[in-house]
């Protein structure tokens, strides 16, 4: 089997077809596959780590398929894109189900606190945070190429990451307080929003990832 250019890690939580469809749309000539084979992930040029559902289930299913080491190894050595729960799992611990994450980065995954979920006019803000919010780029990065600052991306989540190291944050979103919408460190970039569902801005980010040389 030839080496994949993009491996999308499949651990059985939800449908990854939309992620694959979006990559095919921006890079029709590259080899891309949804896979749960640790060897294929280890050999791939780039790794995408998506996620949906609840983090405790995601961690359990990841381990059930023996994919933990392949994912951690990929964060250390090749272009890596985490999406949604794929971002959250990189941290030490989540309030969702009180479970440990993969611990690649120090920090906590927290639930939007009920007492803060209102806007400046006092109107209630809904949880899950579902919809298009502005993403403020807090550091220059190759994955932001051609994407204007404050572009809107599509979010669906009830938990957010609070990195212990503020310098990890690559973007913030206000809902209603500023939280981390993206992180970047070396060969890793990970986002809380869904680039595969964020129309042109999202497709541009995926295109940038395919061409990224960290």
């Amino acid at each position, binding site marked *: 089997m030839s080496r994949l250019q993009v491996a999308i890690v499949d651990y059985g939580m939800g449908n990854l077809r*939309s992620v694959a469809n979006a990559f095919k749309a921006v890079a029709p000539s590259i080899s891309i596959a949804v896979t749960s084979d640790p060897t294929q992930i280890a050999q791939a040029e780039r790794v995408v780590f998506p996620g*949906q*559902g609840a983090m405790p289930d995601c961690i359990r299913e990841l381990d059930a398929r023996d994919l933990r080491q392949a994912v951690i190894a990929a964060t250390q050595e090749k272009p890596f894109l985490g999406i949604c729960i794929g971002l959250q799992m990189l941290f030490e611990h989540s309030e969702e189900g009180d479970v440990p994450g993969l611990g690649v980065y120090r920090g906590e995954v927290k639930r939007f606190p009920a007492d803060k979920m209102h806007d400046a006019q006092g109107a209630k803000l809904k949880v899950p945070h*579902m*919809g298009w919010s502005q993403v403020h780029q807090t550091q220059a990065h190759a994955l932001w190429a051609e994407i204007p600052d404050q572009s809107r991306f599509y979010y669906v989540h009830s938990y957010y990451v609070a990195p212990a190291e503020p310098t990890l944050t690559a973007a913030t979103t206000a*809902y209603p307080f500023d939280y981390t919408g993206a992180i970047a460190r070396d060969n890793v970039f990970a986002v809380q929003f869904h680039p595969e*569902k964020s129309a042109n801005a999202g497709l541009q980010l995926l295109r940038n990832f395919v061409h990224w040389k960290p």
Partner: protein
Amino acid sequence: MGCAKRIIPCLDVTDGRVVKGVNFLELRDAGDPVEIAQRYNDQGADELTFLDITASSDNRDLILHIIERVAEQIFIPLTVGGGVRKVEDVRRLLNAGADKVSINTTAVLNPQVVEDAASRFGSQCIVVAIDAKKVDNQPFEWEVFTHGGRNATGLDAVKWAQKMVSLGAGELLVTSMDRDGTKIGFNNPLNKAISDAVDVPLIASGGVGNLQHLVDGVTLGGADAVLAASIFHYGEFTVQQAKDYMREHGLEIR
């Protein structure tokens, strides 16, 4: 700050075609679903909803092929509803490329499906659709109806909404049957009562006739998203015009 109010064109699909009825009756052909989806995407739609209103089970799988084709070309959230009876139906729609599945009649007949689907696939992809009508023979104002509005359930729409959220619904699609197809505006008191009673986002549906109705749905009805069909299908307004109008009226819009 916050989240843009979403504009969601709704495509009622039967036997592979988009149609639009008035008060759940009198269907008119409005075109090819993939072409229409593409047009709305190009106009800046924030999300698309497909409701499969196919009557015969023979043609049920057509919606899967439509969703597959749409999901290959359009990269915004896709919600699909209509005829969802089992957790397996939810799985098939998600696998075809739906991001969310909307459950309506089945939620009433068998609420366990909502709970099971939410726990298996996550609340983020489970929308419960509530068809409600104002009634004067009950101790509450709005009653839940099923089977495309034919059957009364005796359920209070507001309490029902809360129950669905407690079972795992991540979003509610509330259709006023008194308003659907009438073009006189959303039922804002109904939407406001439900929106205030739950924490999850509410999509207002049923009755849009002009762009001010969309604004009112948010400002008066407390909706997080507004859904409309006929004003977009027959070219009365583009999605872009709707967004411009809502933005001019002070709403946060993508």
